[in-house]
């Protein structure tokens, strides 16, 4: 428009004869006809088919075992016990037995799972303070109002970590034992480190600055969430560097699951141990469970999952099947289109010639 102003003379207001202004830009017309679509359809069907088959083969090689231990075996007692809130402080442990028919090869991942637990509720997801868990000192004792009513206890002592998410943290613990024979038992070593995302462990979750104090001193003036039995700086008695906000169980719990039925990583098989270098051998196993987390309030179930992973995640039969189904749908469409083209479209083609 600026150019137009510069012009003067008799044709000052003549519009520019440019391809853009005259709407004559060279254009590609994506006229989807049978002729153009059919090759694309066949190619797409082929690609989907190959990908589906590849995924299917990959999934076939994985192994997974799922144990619903909510009321399994002697855990039933603990389940009944947890029904009553007044016994919440009482410890309860139980043991679950299972056997593996085929050896788990490679890395084996140990998950705990919950069913019907809605971590994705709006109010629940709101109820956390990312700045507190980021280790900002001013927020430690002054948690965000998002955390209400889990920001401070009845006496007004700030809760660290505050909020409903942290408060409801899953607190069962598991010990896996391998029974190569009836008499012999080998504890299966699980790595409880390196389970989280790098960014979470190193950036998003930080402990308050300790200034050469102990962690407990740093958290002084705060208290643990109401449902917790241990304070946050004492979550992992075995590994002092895994305490406070950077405790990996906490970090994993704080990443809210997308669906009410979910699993969260508990540990990875430590293949440094001589017996488990190739993964989990077949045989009998037991899991000793410290049964703390109550699920009867939401008709929930608790599971443990042992699985091996593939390059695209855990054992997932849906994706390969979906690919194969899509592929066959495309193929079907292509065939229909070919028939239609054969019957009617050819006339049009002839006409153009």
């Amino acid at each position, binding site marked *: 428009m600026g150019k137009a102003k510069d012009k003067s003379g008799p*044709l000052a207001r003549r*519009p520019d004869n440019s391809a853009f202004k*005259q709407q004559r830009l060279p254009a590609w017309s*994506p006229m989807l006809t049978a002729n153009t679509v059919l090759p694309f359809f066949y190619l797409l069907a082929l690609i989907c088919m190959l990908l589906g088959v590849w995924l299917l083969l990959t999934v076939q090689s994985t192994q997974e075992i799922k144990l619903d231990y909510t009321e399994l075996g002697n855990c039933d007692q603990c389940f009944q016990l947890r029904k009553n809130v007044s016994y919440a402080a009482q410890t309860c442990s139980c043991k679950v037995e299972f056997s593996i028919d085929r050896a788990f090869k490679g890395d084996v991942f140990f998950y705990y799972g919950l069913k019907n637990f809605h971590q994705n*509720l709006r109010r629940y997801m*709101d109820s956390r303070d*990312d700045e507190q868990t980021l280790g900002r000192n001013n927020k430690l004792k002054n948690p965000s109002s998002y955390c209400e009513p889990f920001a401070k206890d009845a006496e007004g002592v700030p809760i660290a970590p505050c909020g409903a998410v942290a408060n409801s943290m899953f607190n069962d613990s598991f010990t896996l034992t391998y029974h190569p024979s009836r008499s012999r038992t080998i504890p299966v070593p699980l790595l409880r480190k390196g389970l989280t995302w790098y960014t979470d462990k190193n950036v998003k979750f930080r402990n308050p600055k300790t200034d050469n104090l102990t962690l407990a001193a740093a958290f002084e003036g705060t208290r643990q969430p109401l449902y917790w039995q241990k304070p946050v700086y004492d979550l992992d008695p075995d590994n002092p560097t895994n305490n406070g906000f950077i405790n990996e169980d906490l970090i994993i719990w704080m990443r809210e699951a997308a669906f009410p039925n979910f699993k969260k990583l508990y540990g990875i098989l430590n293949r440094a141990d001589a017996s488990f270098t190739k993964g989990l051998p077949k045989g009998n196993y037991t899991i000793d469970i410290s049964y703390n987390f109550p699920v009867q*309030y939401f008709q929930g179930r608790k599971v443990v999952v042992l699985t091996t992973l593939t390059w695209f995640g855990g054992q997932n039969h849906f994706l390969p099947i979906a690919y194969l189904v899509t592929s066959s749908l495309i193929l079907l469409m292509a065939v229909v289109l070919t028939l*239609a083209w054969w019957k*009617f479209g050819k006339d049009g083609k002839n006409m153009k010639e």
Partner: protein
Amino acid sequence: MNNSGPRYKRSQLEKRLNTDVLWCVALLIVMCLTASVGHGLWLNNFKDAGFQVDGETSPALAGFYVFWTMIIVLQVLIPISLYVSIEIVKLGQIYFIHNDLDFYNEQQDSRIQCRALNITEDLGQIQFLFSDKTGTLTENKMVFCRCSIYGVEYPHVENARRLQVYEAEQNEAAGRTVTLKSACSGKSLSCRSLSCNHSSVSLHTLTAESLEEDQLSGHAAVRTGAFCSRMAKDVVPDPELVRKLSCLSSSALHLKGSSSASLSGLELTYITDFFLALAICNSVVVSSPSQPRHMVPEARAPLKSLEEMKLMFQRLSFYSFSPLQIKGSPRSFTSKLFTRGKTSSFTFNTPPNNSTDGSDPALECSQDTCKLKTKVDLPDRGDREDSAAMSSGEDLESLMEIKADGVKQNLEGMGGDEESEEDIDDELLYEAESPDEAALVHAARAYHCTLRGRSAESLLVDLPGIGSLVVQLLHILPFDSNRKRMSVVVRHPVTGQVVVYTKGADSVIMDLAETQKGSEQAQEIYSHIREQTQKHLDTYAREGLRTLCIAKKVLEEEEYEVWLKRQLLAESSIENQEELLLDSAQRLETDLTLLGCTGIVDRLQEDVPETIEALQEAGVKVWILTGDKQETAINIANACKLLRSSDRLLSANCGSRDACGALLEELLSEVQHEEEREESSLDSTSSFILVIDGRTLEWALQEELKGSFLELSCKCKAVICCRSTPLQKSKVVQLIRDKIGVMTLAVGDGANDVSMIQVADVGIGISGQEGMQAVMSSDFAISRFKHLKKLLLVHGHWCYHRLANMILYFIYKNVMYVNLLFWYQFFCGYSGSVMINAWVLILFNLVFTSVPPLIYGILDQDTPADTLMKLPELYGASRTTKVYIPFMFWINMLDAFYQSLVCFFLPYFALAGSDAGTLSFGSPINTSALFIILLHQVIESNTLTWIHMLVLVLSAALYFGFVQLYSAFCVACSHPTNLFGVETLQITQPLFYIICTLTTVAALLPRILFRALFNSLHSSAPLRSAQRDEVAAERYRQRMKLWNLKHSGASSPQVHADNPGLEPIEDEVVS
């Protein structure tokens, strides 16, 4: 009042859109209610669950809260941004309409003006077009065409030819000027052989000018003033008239007589008075680039002394300036009448009773050429060109003689030689109130009766052979529509008498000029003049010319004094001033002497017939609403091919309401009868054209007759309303708009079209000769009628399709995206939580997917422009099979639901039961939604340019850029949906890509399939017919080739191949 004030115009599409937006609101409420009820019920199952934050809230209340939460979460469904987008798209469409080179008028240096920004798409839905006549279909550039003075018709053959040349030039493409030039020069050559040299000279200059006009294109427009087109300016004088006028000058020069003069003094004075009247009886303002207007330039020294001239005029005035003296009319008069063979009873007995000596030059003149005159006049009635040739030959003779006398002025004066004239005359610019006036002044100037200047009291006029004269202006009685005439009262420069010159509509002047005092013979002569003039007037009207009559009256001094007193009284009176003035004017304008009449042509604009034909093919009914006479209106309708020879004309003229009702019934039954007949006989060749005049229209528009008028007019192919008032025009438009409920378009150029333009759905003003009122009240202002074709057929079509598709796409986009959030509610306890970061959610509609639909709405072309121009049927087809109908809306809704289901549930099943977090789940969903939405547009687009590509790629890139940066750097932002680390991790995981690919492909499959099936099985009928035509033509050509080979040596085959007349046979073969 005729004006009803501006009306807020809202497009049909927007009205339709509003209902769909209401559907969206309904959908939103249903979704929110579902979530609300669901949350209440779901909450009932739980008590003190670990994830419950507000355990004490009752489920009903929580449900209520969720309802409002969901309203906020899903509010994108209400496409508020759509309204903004529509405005932007319309702005873009307007930009392209505004910049269209085809709407540029080089002469006026004007583009199309888009004054309404919100009804572009209505241009694509027009069903009725109401057009004004003058200035809309025609140029409103009045060009002097022919005149009749003293009962003698001057056909101005050269002038008519010149007009044809102009037309031919305008029809030719600019690139073909070379051939044009040769054609023109050829023409001028033939002219040279036919007629005198000066006319050929002017033709030469004409062609030269037209070439110049083509090349410089528009320089002339700058130089000319209002109503001063070159067309109007360059009037080629009629040689016969020039010759007669030259008698005047030569007689003035050679008082002793000249052999070439050949007409009576009376006729000569008539002619002089006629041109003087043309030059001064007007309100034209003269200006020149060098001189400011309103100033009388100093009278150049007259070529002859004033005394000399006075002498001459006194001699002449024996016949001219007092009707009483007319009894001494020369016998040339009678002989002339005799030779015409119409008044053979006229006797010769009157001797040349003039009181002056026999050496009167004019008389001698006439006597000498009496025989010649007979020769000239006889063929005049048969073949005018011959006459022109002969008279011009004679004229040449006289010219030669004059030249020999060494009077250069004469050459300059009579020759019409523009080159020598240019330096003096072309500086003058005439600014007239109406184009007619300007045309007449220019015509007078062509005969060297030039208006040079004007001041309050006087006028400066050049007269042929005399030079500049100051005419004392006593009074101007301006034009008004009641009197239908205007007059000037002047003191004649030469005789000193008070003369009234009146110019006005034929009917009025003829009535006023009825009575004539004087001798019997004079009366007879006069009535003969009247008779002839009336005959000529009728001829002019039949040819579609605008006619004006010129008359004069000589006032005695006392008479004038008496009138002046009354006039002054009237002017100074406060009460009834208007009436008194009217009265005074009427008193003055009586007993007029008819001088002659003029015929002014108002040419049809270029390409009007083609445009109207195309519009009718496109299914647009074209009506003409004009204030003109019935004959003129029908004439123009004929000229612009609205009326064909096969059409049947139904005229409705009646005096009373009952008669009108009966007439309408009768016509209706006639039409119905005809239709039935045609149905039975299966040949539908003729269609009906209703011609209705203003009075009948008044009755027809009344409540009781509205129905039958509507029915009748709908059965007709076209309706011509003549003699209609502005209010009637708007009432007709309103009737059609409201009762039939169709889109109407009104086009006009004058103030009398304003109300019609405002009432119509789309009002188009033609910026032409008649001021700005129509333009100011219009929605679009164009400069030529032919622009309507592209405006409607191409831009209207495009705008409608673009906007309709854009709206559908926009709604689809919103529904599809919002549904993703809705499906998630089934998995999060209907709590209103989202799996997508809040900022991404906001920006998705606002930034990442907002520009592509705009580009789509501005640039998409469903059919190329030239195809749309070639096949007007496409316009009608696109109007009947609308894009934006409820069906398409629901199809799009359905598709949106399908796509959102796929886009949500494929990732859901892929990730169900895994350790995926909410945002990790949202990430592939959002990404595939983006791809689906963008690719959906690619499928829907008809054309993709680099702009589309750029915008699509940029949109996707912007999304990824934003999301990556946001998740890489923002550690504790957007509280509940903190994206930190999520997206950076996602793009490293193969699962993400696997999910996105599958989702995108699966979601787009149905639409691709549908499009492919639709496109390969079904293409629009007109397009196909066009293809068939092409094929047919091609086959035909091949067959002709074969035929040629067989019959080689037969008649030239190319001629046949190009002969379209043979095509129908071929069509039959093909079909």
